[in-house]
């Protein structure tokens, strides 16, 4: 049994492992970068970029590390790879690209129609964002992705070997400059003073002038490009050393910006980091992992020194790397699913079969493991970000999933163990199985929803000023999310109640005991949800009073929380007044989940108010579909119950 357990776990973990990256890609992923105000390993940056372009973390059998390493050091090799996700065929028609069944297109394909796309984007951007159609938004998104890709592909162009340069310079000229092999733009710029001397001398003057002109025109072209597309914001891996003395400027530059900004600095100062970049590029060409590792380490040391005024950046970066490699949230999602499948498959065996009991217990263990992994993932994020992990939609779903699993676990632990008869020593009680089922199902579903928001970019973004309060963020949002978890779980149990109730009605089985248990769970979860939503809302009121000067301002998010409180109060009072019974409570709990979803997403969809920090596109259709399906489910259950009751009478 134990062997089987470990064997399956290892299998499961290896299934979810990212494709093995090359040693150089692994080393490169450790390099420090400043992106969107946050210091992070390139690993996280690469992952978010590939997700942003293609919605995946693996393309053409390469994982995101390997893909990104090629994009930086050898971009031409991936120009034909299909990575750009385009959902709207109208975009493809507009730029004259054939529709692909996988909805992904290569850089080469998009390049042919980029001028047309540029014009379309210009006319789309002339309109205010809210007035743009879905196709226009897609034009802008694809265009921005294309340019970001181009910027990344050019980020190391200064150091890449260019055959054109090599052919322009004769062997004589190269030996006079002390150069050999293929030349890069930077290797020539590095020899600018020697070239200047040669231009003055007579025998190689003509060649030297020609080469000087080529270098100049290339540099000018890139500078222009840099100004046009704000290259300085992309791929900022080099610390701005010109201000290290003051220790106040924590900015980083991309290699091109660094080259541009350091023009006025003395030569030694100017070249200090650029030479590391050149060495990095050369080590890549030579496939020299050892040198590559040493250069990355050297560059990181310089970067950490630059930002030494910031506390504990290095351990956080290392933890983030571990987090990315371990993938605790993705794996826990898989384990929840596995636990669920085990529990479902156990139902196919006869009630007293030993294998069935083993499967049930195994399912419980897998659930526990998933829960621990899930918790460790959240803990890692807390340590990396030094704040509560509940500041965007992705994080809130991950957190609510955890609380749902925790609630199921706590309830299962409050249940007394069943009697010590032959079968029952091995078995989990029905109630405990219900808890495992509920915990796994709710956590899996919520994590599945959270994975849809990963493509929004970095899920560990820096906070805007008003949110940057650890105390209030930790208390108000966490309490609110716990409330959401309680009400959502009540809704999930409500579904199970109705299904079981209907099954009982149709099969004419008495399932009153388990229905009674579900009913109590629904009430408990609604009570829990009400307590925490109220607590969260009041804490939010206090935070608002501290920040904005009013306890309550009828902001959409506040109203959303109030809707949950009101609905749970309506449910409890309707039951107390006798207007609804157990069946009604189950139906009301499902409506409660619908109210939670409206509150959770609705505000972002409205795009107004002080809480609408992350407007998320395309959610409206999903939300309305969900609400429609729930509505049909409730109506279906009511109709079937009435029908069966009439049939029985």
């Amino acid at each position, binding site marked *: 049994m134990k062997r089987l357990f470990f064997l399956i776990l290892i299998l499961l973990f290896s299934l979810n492992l990212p494709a093995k990256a090359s040693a150089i890609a692994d080393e490169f992923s450790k390099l420090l970068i400043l992106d969107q105000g946050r210091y992070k390993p390139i690993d996280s940056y690469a992952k978010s970029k590939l997700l942003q372009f293609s919605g995946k973390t693996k393309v053409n059998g390469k994982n995101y590390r390997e893909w990104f390493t090629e994009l930086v050091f050898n971009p031409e090799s991936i120009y034909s790879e299909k990575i750009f996700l385009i959902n709207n065929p109208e975009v493809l028609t507009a730029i004259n690209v054939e529709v692909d069944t996988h909805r992904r297109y290569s850089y080469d394909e998009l390049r042919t129609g980029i001028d047309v796309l540029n014009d379309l984007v210009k006319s789309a951007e002339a309109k205010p964002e809210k007035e743009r159609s879905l196709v226009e938004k897609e034009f802008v998104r694809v265009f921005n992705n294309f340019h970001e890709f181009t910027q990344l592909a050019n980020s190391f162009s200064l150091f890449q070997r260019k055959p054109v340069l090599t052919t322009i310079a004769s062997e004589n000229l190269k030996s006079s400059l002390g150069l050999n092999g293929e030349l890069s733009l930077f290797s020539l710029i590095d020899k600018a003073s020697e070239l200047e001397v040669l231009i003055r001398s007579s025998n190689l003057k003509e060649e030297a002038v020609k080469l000087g002109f080529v270098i100049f025109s290339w540099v000018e072209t890139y500078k222009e490009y840099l100004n046009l597309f704000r290259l300085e914001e992309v791929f900022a891996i080099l610390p701005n050393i010109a201000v290290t003395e003051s220790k106040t400027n924590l900015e980083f530059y991309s290699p091109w910006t660094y080259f541009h900004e350091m023009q006025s600095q003395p030569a030694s100062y100017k070249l200090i980091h650029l030479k590391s970049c050149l060495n990095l590029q050369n080590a890549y060409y030579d496939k020299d992992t050892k040198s590559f590792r040493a250069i990355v380490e050297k560059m990181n040391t310089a970067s950490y020194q630059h930002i030494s005024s910031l506390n504990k950046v290095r351990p956080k970066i290392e933890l983030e790397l571990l987090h990315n490699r371990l993938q605790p949230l993705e794996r826990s999602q898989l384990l929840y699913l596995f636990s669920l499948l085990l529990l479902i498959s156990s139902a196919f065996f006869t009630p007293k079969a030993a294998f069935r009991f083993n499967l049930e217990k195994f399912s419980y263990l897998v659930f526990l493991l998933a829960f621990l992994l899930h918790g460790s993932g959240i803990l890692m994020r807390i340590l990396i970000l030094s704040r509560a992990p509940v500041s965007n939609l992705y994080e809130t779903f991950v957190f609510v999933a955890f609380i749902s699993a925790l609630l199921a676990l706590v309830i299962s632990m409050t249940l007394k163990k069943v009697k010590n008869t032959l079968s029952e020593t091995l078995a989990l009680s029905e109630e405990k199985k219900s808890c495992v089922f509920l915990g796994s199902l709710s956590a899996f579903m919520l994590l599945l929803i959270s994975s849809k928001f990963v493509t929004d970019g970095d899920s560990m973004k820096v906070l805007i000023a008003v949110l940057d309060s650890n105390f209030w963020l930790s208390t108000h949002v966490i309490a609110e999310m716990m409330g959401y978890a309680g009400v959502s779980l009540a809704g999930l149990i409500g579904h199970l109640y109705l299904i079981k109730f209907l099954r009982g009605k149709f099969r004419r089985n008495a399932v009153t005991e388990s229905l009674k248990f579900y009913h109590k769970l629904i009430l*408990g979860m609604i*009570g829990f949800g009400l307590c925490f939503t109220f607590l969260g809302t009041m804490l939010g009121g206090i935070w608002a009073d501290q920040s904005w000067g009013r306890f309550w301002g009828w902001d959409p998010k506040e109203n959303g929380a109030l809707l949950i409180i009101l609905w749970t109060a309506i449910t409890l009072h309707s039951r107390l007044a006798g207007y609804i019974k157990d069946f009604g409570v189950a139906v009301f709990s499902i409506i409660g989940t619908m109210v939670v979803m409206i509150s959770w997403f609705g505000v972002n969809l*409205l795009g107004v108010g002080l809480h609408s920090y992350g407007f998320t596109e395309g959610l409206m259709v999903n939300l309305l579909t969900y609400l429609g399906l729930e509505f049909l489910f409730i109506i279906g259950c009511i109709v079937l119950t009435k029908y069966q009751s009439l049939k029985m009478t």
Partner: protein
Amino acid sequence: MKVPHYFKYLSSFKLTLFVLVSLMLLVFFGTLYQAEHGLYLAQKKFFDSLIIIDGFLILPGAVLIMCIAFINLSAFLCFKFKYSWAKLGILIIHLGLMSLLLGGFYTLYFSKESLISFREGEQTNRSTDYYKWQLRVIKEEKLSGVNKAKSRSESLIPFEIDSKNLDSHFSLELKKAIPQLKLEKYYRNGRVFETPFAGIIPKELELNKEFEQNTPLFIFSDTDTQEKVYLDNFDYRVLSYEASEGLNYQLSLERLSSELPVIIRLDDVKRDLHPNTQVAKAYASTISVLEEGSNKFRKVEISMNKPFRYKDYTFYQASYGIDTDGVEFSSLAVVKNAGRLVPYIASFLTVLGLAIHFIMHFLKFIKYQRADLAS
């Protein structure tokens, strides 16, 4: 004691459910209305009103619903509630909710919100209202006599920006202040444009959802000549109007301001950005405060989530900017609310009640579950 029938109704679950469902509908539709028309109008129509009138439809507003909720809660505790230790949680919850409603009523009718916007180095003891304005009319009359002295008088006519049509009171006040002019038209958001060829053109602008951004435009007409006179607030315009020989009026539109119990000077404004971005990490204003009865300024720092409190007043960091002269300015939101602590106490009570009630039920659930399974 026999409880009268109507008191029973006031404490009934039917009324409770009516209140809860009505409030839920109000909140839902009020939020949707907010997306379309902005917070201020939604608040006025749905949340700060006793009744909502929309065409022929008359519905209860949130204030009326909350009044009924308060009566329902009080009647419940007086006539229906069975006092026992087991129901301690319920009792505290309901008391907490009653105090929350009381706090809400007090804030709605007695709290006052305003704004100070000043540049570095400037000082003020006044704050301006977000939505209330006034028309200032200065009358200057040349007195007959050898010394050519002028008489000068001033009238202030207040009005609220959201009024679609200004009421008769405004017209009456206007007539008293400047009988030569009659109000022809009023726009909640508008501006006068001076063009080289077409002359002066008044234009109504689209109403801003953030209502405090709207600035009114008045069109007056001369009662004798029927000539049009336009007045807006662009660039703090002061309109000079000569009614007759020797009689001159100066008209201007300004936000209503009120005096503060302190003088505040803006010494410095700071804005921290996350590196390599334009995303603000923190804002802070260093101010010097001169309190009543004191002759020495004291330094105070106001930042996000860290306001400055003085008596019933609280000053918050609201926004930051750089004006056209390149000087940094800061806006501080000012709230006067003597009942500020009521919601804090009420929330504490309600949460305490909820916690007691929930824990008691949870323990009961465990006890029941174990007993049930053991049997």
